[in-house]
């Protein structure tokens, strides 16, 4: 397929967003060792292009649902960084009041509805949300004003609820984007132990979704695939499915590398690192003279400051009280 490249300014912006996620997660990984972020944390380092390339097309009216590996989706959708960090520390100022930790994020103002860690759990919720949006808008002349995006992994695709949700989404022609982040692993289990050799997106296509696959490590490709998909969904053409190939660098859960465990093929991680989404984009930016070392350094400085400030703010958080723990069982 022809890849319509993002405009130059856009590409720089995409790079910046990816870099922001990368640096934020690196900082989280660094500080995780202090044993103060006491919750399971799944980093998306190496996979930033997907969240960024997709969310670039979303407005505040559009909604995102996510999974256990949600930091990137949250940040790309405009979720508040300091409140994410406060959440990791378990403070009352966290985006979830400290109740959720890394695996339960929300920022309603940004349109990031929720991430939760039961694999597949948010998939039908996203469809239900899209259905409600569609009903609210029904009668509108030009398809749907807002679209909903659900991010999930290749492992999640094995859950029956995927199939149930795709069927309903196509039946109702929902303004919904399914974004499958295929990083070939579910925890440490490779795809070949879980799924036969065939394409995930083709199952979605057989369900009647507009489905396509692409390189999830090229933000320009993700950007243009997502652009078409978001436009389709917005214009009432029904649910869209992107299968994007990528690779997670750190361990499944936690701040460390784990290539020594030997569950990845030898050289696999190293090869994927060469295909780093940031590296590739930086090369393009420099080669096409869309940016230069000075500007890139400036970006780093700006981000380092933002992240440092975010941590400072987060670490000043207050402990939720024991009394508060009892609140909000019922609305």
């Amino acid at each position, binding site marked *: 397929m022809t890849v319509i490249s993002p405009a130059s300014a856009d590409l720089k912006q995409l790079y910046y967003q990816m870099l922001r996620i990368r640096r934020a997660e690196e900082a989280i990984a660094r500080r995780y060792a202090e044993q103060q972020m006491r919750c399971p944390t799944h980093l998306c380092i190496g996979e930033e292009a997907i969240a960024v390339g997709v969310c670039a097309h979303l407005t505040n009216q559009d909604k995102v649902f996510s999974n256990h590996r949600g930091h990137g989706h949250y940040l790309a959708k405009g979720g508040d960084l300091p409140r994410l960090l406060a959440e990791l520390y378990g403070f009352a100022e966290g985006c*979830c009041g400290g109740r959720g930790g890394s695996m339960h994020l929300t920022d309603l103002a940004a349109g990031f*509805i929720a991430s*939760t860690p039961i694999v597949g759990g948010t998939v039908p919720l996203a469809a239900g949300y899209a259905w*409600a949006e569609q009903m609210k808008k*029904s009668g509108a002349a030009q398809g749907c004003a807002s679209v909903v995006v659900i991010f999930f992994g290749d492992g999640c695709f094995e859950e029956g609820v995927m199939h149930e949700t795709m069927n309903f989404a196509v039946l109702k022609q929902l303004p919904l984007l399914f974004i499958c982040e295929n990083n070939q692993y579910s925890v440490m289990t490779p795809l070949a132990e879980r799924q036969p050799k065939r394409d995930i997106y083709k199952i979605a296509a057989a369900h009647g979704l507009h489905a396509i696959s692409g390189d999830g490590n090229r933000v320009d490709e993700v950007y243009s695939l997502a652009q078409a998909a978001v436009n389709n969904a917005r214009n009432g053409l029904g649910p869209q499915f992107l299968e994007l190939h990528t690779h997670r660098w750190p361990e499944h859960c936690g701040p460390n590398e784990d290539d020594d465990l030997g569950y990845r093929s030898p050289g696999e991680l190293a090869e994927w690192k060469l295909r780093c989404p940031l590296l590739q984009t930086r090369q393009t930016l420099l080669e096409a003279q869309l940016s230069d070392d000075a500007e890139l350094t400036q970006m780093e400085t700006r981000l380092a400051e933002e992240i440092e400030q975010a941590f400072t703010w987060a670490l000043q958080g207050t402990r939720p009280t024991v009394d508060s723990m009892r609140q*909000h*069982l019922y*609305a």
Partner: protein
Amino acid sequence: MHEVEMMTYGEAIREALDDALAKYPEMLLIGEGVPDPKTIFATTQGLREKYGAERVLDMPLAENGMTGICIGAALAGMRPVLVHQRIDFALLSVDQLVNNAAKWHYMFDGQQKVPLVIRVIIGRGWGQGPQHSQSLQGMFAQVPGLKVVMPTTAGDAYHFMSAAIADNNPVLFIEHRWLHHIMGEVDKQTPSAGLDGAALLREGRDVTLAAFSHMSIEALKTATTLAEHGIDVEVLDMRCVSSLDVQRVAASLAKTGGNLVIADCAPEMASIGHQLLSKLVLAHGHCLQQAPRLIAYPNHPVPTSHFVANHYYPGAEQIVSAVLDMLDRSELTEAVIGALQSDLPKDQPDRSFVGPF
């Protein structure tokens, strides 16, 4: 002046759905068969015609996914009412009910809410068998964040359904199929009791009979017949199973001298009656005069064969025996049970109820 209407339990549910659809433009009514010609035992009759196919609709056979979809719609501001013709089918959606619906408001620190009603029917009778007639109130009543009610009277059916739809939390609304045809008073103007508290179905001095759902009907039958023998039973309908009204039972026991019989429509090991009794003992140690009784089903699945299924279900007879035994009046048992005898096959609630259904 209040207008009190007589209607069946099933009609009361239909009325409540109708009124709520009129009141809440964001309400949806969805489920397998909701708009089909049989309209869930006529409880959704005419509603699609009145409110449109967008709001009153059928669904694919996908209980877990559709529950999640309804949760998502609820998060976006809708009020879905999802119907399963058998409570057994809700077992396919325990993931979404327990992991998401029940926890969502809490785990997102009160920022989001899930106004969702799940209507489920206990399908006793006519050989429904092991997979189509389970009683699962005990299982669902122990999930923090999920409200579980099982109203017994037409009046409660109306008001509880109305309150459940108005509620901003997930509510599991359990109907017993054998209640559907029973007439009762519905006073729409009386403000809904909310989703709390036991109901006093009959006052009495001698024994407290705390009963659940269809067993409350059996308890009332018992009480009426026992009254003819001078025995005065108080019947409490424990309609809110996830927030048992222990206080009310204790108050009743203070009057009846601590004589307690609990009657649940579930296997003993699955009975929420255990929780009731335990809570009572924990909170009111010395409220019991003698060992209480729990009347419940045997601890195995319901066999299909009506020859044995008829013996599976305890009813008024077992309640009578327990009450009389407790009062040391067992000499009356034969006479009272004789008076209760009916020639109706035990796999039908009434004559109009014939197979298949």
